[in-house]
């Protein structure tokens, strides 16, 4: 199918973009790569009356590190991250995740911020940013604000972003040189949206041992203290099941099986690193 008719603009600054969307009464949408919104518009699941293309705004591609903090611009593409063109400070985690997003032709155009604002629970960045406990940097008609990781997603395809606010980037603490991570995604075909995602970040030097159960029709489920899963619990024990239950996954269901396998395997990858960084 073809998208319904809409108006289009490609401004050069955020305030200009906000001024274009603000008067549309929620019927205008910001877009960057259009690799998620494009299909939804072709299927007419989304019918915005106006698209404001953010790709002309150079500031949204800015990335910087300040001490231990890393800031990544929203309009960085998945391919740029995959190719290591951006210093992510994640010891290869984001580079690894990027190469598994959809297909190269999609990664060439799709953006970090676009994926996060789209907030598909089965997408990669939304779960990765949860694992990194990232802050979301937002700007709107009344100025800039910061949204904490746990506040970003209210539900599937729903974020804390107001219709006239732009996600300008994300900020998180870089991983220490001894940090370890694992990322396990289950899908039937490479490039599909995941049926289950599990992420571990074990950064003892920073006192962080965090895990995420993702792709669960809801915001990512964060396990703030995952030490038990990595160091104490046998993968066969109910310790894993307790977290899956808390994440709202029904015991005995197919979903429970795939999420359990993802979580156990992601934990296993860290365990098998034997104290060596990945």
């Amino acid at each position, binding site marked *: 199918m073809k998208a319904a*008719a809409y108006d289009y603009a490609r401004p050069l600054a955020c305030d200009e973009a906000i001024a274009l969307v603000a008067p549309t009464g929620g019927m205008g949408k910001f877009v960057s790569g259009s690799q998620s919104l494009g299909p939804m518009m072709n299927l007419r699941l989304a019918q915005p009356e106006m698209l404001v293309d953010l790709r002309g705004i150079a500031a949204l591609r800015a990335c910087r590190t300040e001490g231990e903090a890393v800031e990544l611009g929203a309009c960085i593409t998945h391919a740029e991250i995959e190719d290591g063109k951006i210093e992510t400070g994640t010891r290869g985690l984001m580079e690894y995740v990027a190469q598994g997003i959809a297909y190269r032709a*999609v990664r*060439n155009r799709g953006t970090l911020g676009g994926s996060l604002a789209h907030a598909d629970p089965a997408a990669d960045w939304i779960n990765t940013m949860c694992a990194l406990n990232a802050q979301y940097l937002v700007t709107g008609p009344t100025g800039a604000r910061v949204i904490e990781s746990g506040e970003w997603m209210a539900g599937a395809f729903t974020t804390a972003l107001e219709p006239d606010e732009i996600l300008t980037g994300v900020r998180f603490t870089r991983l220490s040189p001894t940090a370890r991570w694992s990322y396990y995604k289950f899908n039937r075909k490479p490039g599909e949206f995941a049926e289950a995602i599990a992420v571990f970040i074990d950064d003892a030097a920073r006192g962080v041992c965090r895990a995420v159960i993702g792709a669960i029709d809801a915001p990512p489920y964060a396990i703030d203290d995952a030490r038990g899963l990595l160091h104490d619990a046998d993968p066969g024990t109910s310790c894993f099941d307790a977290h899956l239950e808390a994440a709202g996954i029904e015991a005995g269901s197919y979903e429970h099986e795939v999420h359990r396998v993802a979580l156990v395997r992601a934990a296993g990858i860290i365990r098998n690193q034997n104290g060596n960084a990945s």
Partner: protein
Amino acid sequence: MSDAFIMTIELVVNQATVAERVEPRTSVADFLRDQRMLCGTNIGCEQGVCGACTIEVDGVPTRSCITPAISCAGSAVRTIEGFDDDATMNELRAAFTAEHALQCGYCTPGMLMTARDIVTRLPNADDARVRLELSGNLCRCTGYVGIVRAIRRVLDARRARAAVPLAADAATA
């Protein structure tokens, strides 16, 4: 075409600068086929999954069915027709023929775009990597064995040429 939102865009298509009136909702795939008569770009799923519509935008493979033409204003677009004189693409075409990598040909323009990306970007790709990279291009009749073999053939040939010492290369030039 309804008149409501029509805008004029300027972009480069296969090395020629063109100015065209487009509706914002027109995908670059439809723009190329309907307004530029470049029908080598095939449309399959129209949701970015099948890869048949893959073209190059600013030098990298892009899904033309989910990318609006208007978002390509100021960009350089290259379709399969724009690769007629491209040595790597011609080598791939010959390999696709030799390895029976196409039957109906519907997926072939997109396959060739992805194949060219693989052999130029990933010179050391093994068969598993080739298959992984091809996962975004669906073929429903030939099967992938011939396609993987064709790409393998070009990868190997490029590798062999790269291994020729510079002096010998210069001597034959």
